[in-house]
């Protein structure tokens, strides 16, 4: 199997449409930018104040005044704009971001997501995640299906929510899932796994799409 993160990032990239305004979270989601198909132009928003973010800056050519939300030096594309944080989150909450891709600690069948705190253990803060999942038109969770075998997808999240009822899609190395009113529908399964294996790795009963496809 190829690198798990690359499999996930490559599949997420296929969800993005030409002209979409997209915010990619830190870590795996940032890798999605490397897999955008030829002929598809997306406009990357970075919540610290960029519309039209480009690739990471080459070593030695960094502008130290230009970073992304993960504090890495980046470039901006022709046609880019810088703005302040209030404007940035007006763009986000105002529904002007077509898709946001982020990781999660837990997701549940109601579209609830937990990603920012493990009480008593890890309190990094929510950063911009709460605003992004509430404001973006489409919320894609990109994550490994389990935490070293332990379930991450449940009937109900155990950890405090980032937001309730916001997740549209979950993409893991095992498959592609859509969150619907009826529950989580498995629409694609990766060829390295069976439907039974995906179900066993999931803490909620999956609805198997009658139109189930191979995840490529």
């Amino acid at each position, binding site marked *: 199997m190829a690198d798990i993160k690359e499999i996930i990032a490559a599949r997420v990239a296929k969800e993005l449409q030409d002209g979409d305004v997209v915010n990619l979270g830190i870590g795996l989601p940032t890798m999605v930018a490397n897999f955008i198909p030829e002929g598809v132009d997306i406009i990357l928003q970075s919540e610290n104040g960029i519309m039209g973010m480009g690739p990471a800056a080459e070593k030695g050519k960094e502008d130290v005044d230009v970073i992304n939300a993960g*504090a890495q030096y980046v470039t901006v594309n022709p046609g880019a704009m810088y703005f*302040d*944080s209030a404007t940035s989150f007006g763009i986000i909450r105002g529904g002007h971001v077509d898709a946001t891709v982020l990781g999660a600690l837990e997701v549940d069948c109601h579209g609830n997501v937990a990603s920012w705190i493990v009480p008593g253990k890890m309190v990094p803060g929510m950063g911009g995640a*709460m605003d992004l999942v509430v404001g973006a038109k489409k919320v894609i969770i990109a994550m490994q299906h389990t935490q070293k075998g332990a379930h991450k997808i449940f009937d109900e999240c155990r950890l405090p929510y980032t937001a309730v009822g916001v997740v549209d899609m979950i993409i893991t190395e095992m498959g592609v899932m859509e969150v619907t009113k009826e529950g989580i529908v498995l629409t694609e399964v990766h060829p390295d796994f069976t439907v039974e294996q995906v179900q066993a790795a999931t803490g909620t009963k999956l609805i198997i799409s009658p139109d189930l496809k191979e995840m490529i």
Partner: protein
Amino acid sequence: MKNKIMTADEAVARIKEGDSIMVGGFMACGSPEILLDALVRRNVKHLTVICNDAGVPGRGVGKLITNGQVKTLIASHVGLNPEVAKRMNTDVEEDKLECILVPQGTLAERVRAGGAGLGGFLTPTGVGTIVAENKQVINVDGKDYLLERPLRADHALLRGTVTDKFGNTTYNGTTRTFNPMMATAADYVIVGTCEVVEIGQIDPNNVVTSGIFIDAIVGGEEQWQI
């Protein structure tokens, strides 16, 4: 015209024990290091600091945290400064740091509201989460929102790129962050800036923060690596 140009030490001399301070920047990109260094030298304690994040040790508000000057930190993200967790969990009362986490968009808008004369605003962010605890939920046209209150501070420490002698300021790249809102939301506003120029040298089209908001101008700020 009133002379606003001063040294960093003069500018922070009025900051007292227990004051509240807004600091611009995102992961220290857009934080005024020369002003923070002066505040470390001044060594006033029990400060309430309002900033997007906790910076990193040795950069941004991380300097104040390491020096034990911050009693309360109001921020959206503190995970990249390990010093914060250490001080939140310490048993030494004098070193204890209280951390109030606020969603980033809510924090930015609370500061904006504080400077714009608003009594608060309604946001969908945080509805149904622990952020909603003890907050009023208001339903508008069938959708729930949280009532979030404005935020102001005694002082704001901004980081500018070019500032004229009136205080008109521009911000390069992603240094803008919270700086323009914080300029409007504090009683005394200090800008640490890379270049001080004569009035009229900045094209009015490019001014982001008007000089009317600025009380003190400190030159000598630099472009820092994170």
